[in-house]
């Protein structure tokens, strides 16, 4: 679902983040408040302009008084909340999550068209992932290069579903979806037909631009050449929700 349009009469709450006091609209999420105030919280599935998915778990934060960690993207602010965004435990968990993403599929940065422009790679650097401590699964995944303009490489997909959501919520085509369970989970076009044979794809390329890695890229790009432009999304999202 797309994020709800801001209500005109929403109450304001006060809360603490990393020892500093903040006030926020009660309908805001923790990650929105943090982004507004330049408090860095990593995330891969969250994207301003798309609905909340809560899949990557990189935006986990600690709420004092609560035993469990909560995802900043899917947690609304509340009066008196005391949040910690960057504890040693969170850093450890985030690094492990990123390592697991690298181990799950074949992310070989050095030969990737998104090398140097990849959100996963950037996050790995931020999290200090200089090596992966779990064994790589090294499963051979397919590349769907059937589309005239774009290419899908399942080896580099982290299942953030940004493509699924942008196609459904912004473009309105709903070409993308998710099929399978667990390690067999895949993003698919139409009913698992090759992308080039999709009858619903409009070829707009929004999915490619929002993809955080080299999973969805333009044809004709070589190593390191795929630079994505995501500025369009908040603008389109606001216009769509204003309709």
């Amino acid at each position, binding site marked *: 679902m797309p994020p709800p349009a801001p209500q005109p009469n929403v109450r304001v709450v006060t809360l603490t983040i990393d020892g500093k006091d903040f006030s926020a609209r009660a309908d805001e999420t923790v990650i929105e408040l943090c982004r507004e105030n330049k408090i860095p919280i990593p995330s891969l599935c969250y994207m301003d302009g798309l609905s909340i998915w809560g899949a990557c778990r990189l935006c986990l934060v600690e709420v004092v008084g609560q035993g469990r960690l909560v995802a900043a993207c899917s947690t609304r602010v509340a009066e008196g909340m005391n949040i910690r965004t960057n504890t040693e435990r969170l850093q450890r968990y985030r690094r492990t999550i990123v390592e697991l993403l690298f181990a799950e599929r074949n992310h070989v940065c*050095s*030969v990737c*068209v998104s*090398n140097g422009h990849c959100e996963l790679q950037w996050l790995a650097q931020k999290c200090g992932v200089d090596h992966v401590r779990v064994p790589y699964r090294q499963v*051979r995944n*397919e*590349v*769907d*290069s*059937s589309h005239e303009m774009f*290419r899908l*490489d399942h080896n580099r997909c982290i299942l953030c579903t940004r493509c699924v959501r942008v196609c459904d919520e912004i473009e309105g085509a709903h070409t993308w979806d998710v099929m399978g369970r667990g390690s067999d989970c895949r993003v698919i076009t139409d009913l698992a037909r090759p992308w*080039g044979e999709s009858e619903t794809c409009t070829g707009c390329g929004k999915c490619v631009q929002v993809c955080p890695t080299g999973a969805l890229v333009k*044809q*004709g*790009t*070589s*190593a*390191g*050449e795929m630079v994505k432009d995501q500025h369009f999304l908040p603008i389109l999202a606001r216009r769509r929700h204003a309709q």
Partner: protein
Amino acid sequence: MSRTITIEPVTRIEGHARITLQLGDQGEVEDARFHLTQFRGFEKFCEGRPYREMPALTARTCGICPVSHVLASNKACDHLLSVTIPPTAEKLRRIMNLAQITQSHALSFFHLSSPDLLLGWDSDPATRNIFGVMRQDPALAKDGIRLRQIGQMIIEILAGKKIHPTWVVPGGVAEALTQEKREAILKLLPEGLEIAKRTYGFFKTLVPKFKDETSHFGTRPTMFMSLVTPKGNLEHYDGFLRIKDAQGRIVEDMVPTVDYQRLVGEAVEDFSYMKFPYYKPMGYPKGVYRVGPLARLNNAEACGTPYADVALAEFHMLQEYGPITSSFHYHYARLVEIIFAIEMMERLLKDPDILDHRVRARARSNRDEGIGVSEAPRGTLMHHYRIDDDGLITWVNLIIATGHNNLAMNQAIRQVADAYVDGNHLQEGMLNRVEAVIRCYDPCLSCASHAFGQMPLLIELKDAAGQVVDRLTRG
């Protein structure tokens, strides 16, 4: 009784190998084999990948000569696109290739081989290395390090990084050359040329001291294959294939590189992961040929640059008639090529078109098979790909420069073993001469075998029954 002698430091070759010498009843050498024992599998695991990834993927074959793979791979991709790349892009690629040849030849001559030549075959192995050279002749060692640095710096200025650059792309290069970069490279070249000429002059005085090695280091007759320009001159990037026989007669000439399969067949042996390319019309294993600097200079009518042409004329005088057959003279040929590379880079950089912004042809794949051939420092490098309708790789064949020399290297080891090995016991000097003949070819075994591991060199002596009677290892 078997014994193992471990000699430090690690032997000076790129990659890892084993040599076995088969002895007869009287202790004489009956057979000599050069083994690459590990497998990397680039040709297999590239299958299924988009062809545009191939330059970056295959560049990882090697950290010494990634530029060579980048160029051959991009040429294969150009062929898949069916484009003629812009002339400026071709010149820029040529400059990069020449910089690569400069740095790689400098590595081979100064870092890997000069310890033998300066310190002696039988000198203490503990000091027979570049550090020993630094002590013996600091100026020469400094020259070598600087010359290699100049080659690497040129690659970095052009492509942004020294190793595994991605600046060369299918259809040309990613970015045009700027005036600042051109000036930066031009500033480096005079110093490089001075070093190259100085080293060449010095090596000429050394050659007469190695008459014995010259006559035993891989002198058996073989053919020579290389690229040449349409005029038959020295060529490293494009051109046509030429093969000369051991007497210097041209047996194949102006063969388009896309027809390489008419000339080159590939055999496999169960004792090595390196393939055994051979000259197809002569069959296997008779069709032995050599590639690399020696072959290129033997095949070239001229270099086309002033100092290199003088050096080439002197090179041809190393032997009374016919092509230069001793593999010991690979070292000589390398120094001539460094001079040529630096002179040619300067000429290309002074070309008025070199700053042209049109450096990339854009197209989709327009055929399902692409072949790219260029001259790597060690010889002719061939990349051959097939793709499906979606541009995904279905088949890869890489014929690596070192691989072409495989049969010749096996011959050379046999020859050195015949000349120097005493079947009753092994000596360090013998080990080093066997190594040194391999080193003449400057084999890049990591490229050729697609292998990695921790076994630099092992020599085994076997009796007639195949039992190991003696063994020497290094590393």
